[in-house]
């Protein structure tokens, strides 16, 4: 009994120390330029830029290793904002990194899910809920639409669906340019 209490105590002290150490050791150093670039990136965390997430790509841009046109989810607006921040000329999206697509959301066909947890391990923002051997669900609000959970699923029960528009998310469209305008008498 005493031994158990003691060893647990020792364990907790060791973990505590390790955690403290990890916090210091793995702390992302705040580089102001990287922060600014990261603030522009869409945080989809999809890896299409060739880096394992938005922040690594931001770091690579800051160090001059990567160009500013590698992020498809950020689209043209993202490239323009980066060019503006860094005082460079904007350029079109590099097709090697993919194409600009409409933002989607992952949907799990729940009856087919076998509860393997592979999608949970793939999701960069912990947007999938579920335990081993239990049905999994995507928290729609948190899903960034990165597509990373689709491939790992062994039974192909995850698909990407367009986001349904509601009255709250609807916005007035831009007037078609140089058209005809009507009014009332």
């Amino acid at each position: 009994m005493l031994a158990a209490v003691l060893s647990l105590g020792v364990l907790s002290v060791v973990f505590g120390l390790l955690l403290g150490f990890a916090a210091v050791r793995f702390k992302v150093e705040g580089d102001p330029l990287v922060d600014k670039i990261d603030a522009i990136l869409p945080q989809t965390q999809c890896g299409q830029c060739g880096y394992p997430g938005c922040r690594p790509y931001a770091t690579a841009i800051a160090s001059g290793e990567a160009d500013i046109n590698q992020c498809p989810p950020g689209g043209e607006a993202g490239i323009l904002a980066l060019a503006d921040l860094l005082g460079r000329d904007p350029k079109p999206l590099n097709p090697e990194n993919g194409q600009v697509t409409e933002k989607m959301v992952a949907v799990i066909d729940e009856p087919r899910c076998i509860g393997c947890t592979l999608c949970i391990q793939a999701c960069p923002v912990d947007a999938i809920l579920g335990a081993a051997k239990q049905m999994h669900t995507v928290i729609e609000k948190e899903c960034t639409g990165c597509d990373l959970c689709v491939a790992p699923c062994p039974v192909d029960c995850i698909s990407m669906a367009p986001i349904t528009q509601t009255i709250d998310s609807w916005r007035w469209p831009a007037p078609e340019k140089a058209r005809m305008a009507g009014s009332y008498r």
Partner: protein
Amino acid sequence: MSANLFHDGVDILHGQRRLWSFHGGVHPPQHKHESTNLPVIRAELPERLILPLHQHIGEPAEPIVQVGDKVLKGQMIGRAHEFLSAPVHASTSGTIVDIGEYAVPHPSGLNATCIVIEPDGEDRGLEHPRVGDYLQLAPSALRNLIREAGIVGLGGAGFPSYIKLNPGKLDGIDTLILNGIECEPYITCDDMLMREYPREIIAGLRVMQHALQARVCVLAIEDNKPEAFRALHDAALHEAGIEVILCPTIYPQGSEKQLIKVITGKEVPANGLAIHIGIVCHNVATALAVHHAVEHGRPLVSRYVTVTGAGVSQPRNLDVAFGTPVRDLIIQCGGDPAAVKRLIMGGPMMGYALHSHAVPVIKTTNCIIAATEADIVPPRPVMPCIRCGACADACPVMLLPQQLYWYAHTNDLDKVQEYNLFDCIECGCCSYVCPSNIPLVQYYRYAKGAIWTKEREHEQADIARQRHEFRLDRLAREKAEREARRRLKKASLAKNQDKTPHTEEAVDND
């Protein structure tokens, strides 16, 4: 002034307070008399009433009935849980036949959740307890009663009224303005309401005055409504502290900040609220609804709606139960819904085109224009801006519409905000006067939406960044824990090996 403003030989405008004016404004053709010739009648109940749970600014109400339930007129069917929300009541007696997605009045044409009632034809009301003397009620209890009655601003905005009946930190407010301006062309529902219920409107105004502890009440009416003005003037003749005022007609005088300027000469600060300068505005129809709720315990289940335009042969005002489809109103006013070229909800300046005539009348519906070729100017080509400045002269907010247009059209969302896009009230004066036919307001609506979308995306990205960093931390922690456990195991194994010979020694020593 064409109106007969002499009453028993006395100029009733004598002694009226000095009025101010606001910058700009326009005088579009009125088209009001068309719909004031016939008396107001009750609209027939439709086969099905479609009641959206979201008829106001704020959070939607939540249904508290189920399909199959029998309900009485005035029974609450959607409850408001949030502060900024309003409940929904059954507008007649009948059976709940569905709770689902239906087309609602909105420029998007999208569906939203509605409760559908099949009327039983008896129109039986729920017995509501009467309040008695509201002066004995604490203002907060009064506000709660008004909230429970589902009352929202009936002038068009639909802001829950009980919130605007709270003086907040003040002991009381200075001026309560009751808005009977109705400045937009075609719309006459407030005019008819004022002609028919002057005493009840004054009674409602008194209730509002009590809730707000207002020092002065001013009821403002435009001079194109002489009948309404005289009715209210007479009703308020022996009421101390209520001024009924006639204002020269100009659009958009009914807009809150412009009206406050006209009545008090004061400017509401940009990004500020009227109450910050001790003033609150309510609409005349809202005052009547408050009177019904407080004196008769009657929740808000119907309103006056103007049905007009060349698409109906008998343009008039109808007393409409909420949930009645627009189609039914057009038919009752002698129109053919299929022949209507364009269906507008609201007025020609600030209203929007409906996608379907199946949408229901809701709390904020003041007018339906069934427009045909006769109402619509044929489309004219949009030409480049010639920088004539007419739009800036007309803008009641003193913005620079041509600059706003320029930046909205080139998608420069930062610049467009620097030119105070969010002060624009979307009144349409600038588009109305533009000689180049540029649909200016449409650009401002688009730019506002684009900015909101961008802000939302930023918030979502921040959340995603946080969740991602959280996950990286968690993975690092799990890794560190595994590592620690492995090391500990190794260490204890090594120790056990050390220990074993030692123990044997001890045994030997024995």
